[in-house]
């Protein structure tokens, strides 16, 4: 088969998808090392292996569309354009952090980038994302809210409450289930009445079951374009199930040994980044261009890490700020 150069517009898009995925991977890989070094405290939940979902959707979103994500949210923040320096700063809890050190890894928020938060109470953000979509519908702003969550989330009431009302309202919201096969340490299949935790519930709310290979960024992007377009066009919500896998454990130092070795190795072979690189090379993209993208990501990560390392700890004075609208935690009479 002769390799043909892809059309330029298409190529820009695809190199962009690659750039985002690589940036996410480098950022998170280093974040994990920094966790073991003790610089990132508490916990981290990495999306290594799931980058294609974040990249594919973000590339289809308008700058003012809303992202709502979970504690596994670094990739989504990065894909929406959140800069790495303040993101590492937040992971380190430093004053230069996105939220001044108040949030940490699990609660990444950047209103400026319409990254409306990583939520750590499972399911809570689905009704909230619906509310944001409703406001867009009311304001006729044309914005869409995209809400990412895990397979485990499909068994909590808020998932069902949000889907029902989103369908009733024909709200401009896209619910994206990143089915990485596991809750924390329990396989989703062991605790769910249907095989496809999200898609098999869609019909209960009058929605089409949409399943996509969550490790194929082109496929994700195509679904994202279609569902965002549908939402923006007034045709209502979608529920997308993206089948994917986290390469590591649920969080922190979890080695994920509750997963069969052959299952892990088969998914590692389907790494969304290496497979995409192979696909791009197969259509004639220069390996050197891809190498350059990788080198750029590495350099950005290093610069961001350095900036965050140098940033001071927040002053204790900030603990009582931004509690109420008057800026304080105390009422001023």
């Amino acid at each position: 088969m002769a390799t043909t150069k892809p059309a330029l517009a298409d190529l820009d898009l695809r190199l962009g998808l690659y750039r985002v995925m690589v940036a996410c991977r480098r950022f998170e890989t280093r974040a994990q090392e920094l966790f073991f070094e003790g610089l990132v405290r508490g916990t981290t939940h990495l999306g290594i292996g799931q980058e294609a979902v974040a990249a594919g959707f973000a590339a289809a979103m308008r700058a003012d569309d809303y992202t709502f994500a979970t504690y596994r949210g670094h990739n989504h923040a990065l894909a929406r354009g959140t800069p790495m320096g303040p993101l590492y700063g937040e992971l380190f809890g430093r004053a230069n952090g996105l939220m001044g050190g108040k949030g940490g890894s699990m609660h990444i928020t950047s209103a400026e980038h319409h990254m409306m938060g990583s939520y750590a109470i499972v399911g809570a953000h689905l009704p909230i994302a619906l509310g944001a979509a409703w406001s867009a519908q009311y304001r006729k702003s044309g914005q869409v809210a995209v809400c990412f969550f895990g397979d485990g989330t499909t068994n909590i009431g808020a998932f069902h409450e949000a889907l029902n009302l989103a369908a009733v309202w024909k709200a401009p919201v896209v619910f994206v289930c990143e089915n990485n096969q596991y809750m924390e340490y329990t396989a989703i299949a062991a605790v769910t009445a249907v095989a496809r935790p999200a898609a098999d519930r869609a019909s209960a709310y009058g929605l089409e079951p949409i399943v996509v290979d969550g490790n194929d960024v082109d496929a994700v992007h195509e679904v994202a374009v279609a569902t965002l377009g549908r939402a923006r066009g007034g045709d209502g919500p979608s529920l997308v199930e993206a089948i994917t896998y986290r390469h590591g454990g649920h969080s922190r130092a979890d080695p994920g040994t509750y997963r069969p070795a052959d299952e892990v190795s088969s998914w590692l072979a389907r790494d969304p980044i290496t497979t995409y690189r192979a696909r791009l090379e197969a259509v004639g993209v220069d390996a050197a261009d891809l190498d350059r993208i990788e080198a750029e990501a590495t350099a950005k990560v290093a610069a961001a890490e350095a900036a965050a390392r140098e940033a001071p700890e927040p002053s204790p004075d900030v603990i009582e700020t931004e509690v109420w609208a008057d800026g304080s935690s105390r009422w001023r009479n």
Partner: protein
Amino acid sequence: MALKTFIEAVREGLREEMVRDESVIVLGEDVGKKGGVFLATDGLWTEFGDDRVIDTPLSESQIVGTSIGAAIGGLRPVAEIQFADFIHPAFNQLVSEAARLRYRSNNGYSAPMVVRAPYGGGVHGALYHSQSVEAFYTHVPGLKVVVPSTPYDAKGLLRSSIRDDDPVLFFEHKKMYRSVRGDVPEGEYTVPLGKAQVTHPGTQVTVIAYGLMAHYALEAADRVAEENISVEVVDLRTLRPLDKETVLDSVRKTGKCLIVYEDNRFGGYGAEVAAIIAEEAFDYLDGPVTRIAGPDVPGVPYNHVLEEWFMVNPEKIADGIRKLAAY
């Protein structure tokens, strides 16, 4: 000035805010065509239509969660929880999300919204239609909690709550909806959040109350006035932020303080007020800070004798005042 019922004042406040500001939206179970089970939103759907007065599914966490998202997106939702007793499914959304958005985003965004809920006993509502729930929420920094006692305050405080940039819980005592009337002026006025009011000046004992209890405190003050006990009644109006200055000024003057609340005594809102007085006005006290509050049983019982036993009333308050005055 026109004489209005408490619920008419709430309705007028809602309506006038909706006229003033297109981003004000009302949602809840049966709030549209029916106008709410207590008719607090009666007529709003006819006037403002489906886009702004929304009948929701029966899902309280959804009602509050969706309001949070809408507020993030620039609307000013006013959600009705049919009875305060049913707010618990939304506890997570209020405490984990609404209260925390501003802090967690370092002021990147917040949830300016109001959650209205009828609370309180004395209407034979029994175990699941009578509770006071304010203490769960006054505990949470980031939330504001308002409990008006008069039609004037209900309207003025509701307007301020809708305009406030923080999430506000607005508790309306259901027994007052039609039994309490008061003057409500025509035209625009607001009552600021975080300001208590001395509703009965006096010199010997301070009685601090809110909601229905603010009325009962006034009745009790009248009763003991005949016995030459001079009582100062402070109606808190906003529980959080608490107007400490008005409370402490009164206690420093009288030297004695009785706190009244309908909720279960143990861990109730008044316990916090008592602690603040003990910490900040100890040198002025001539007696213990005492409380008249609901008994520690898990719900307001149904039978009228039992319900009367549960409910704080003017005579129970008057007794509390007498004991303190004799100190």
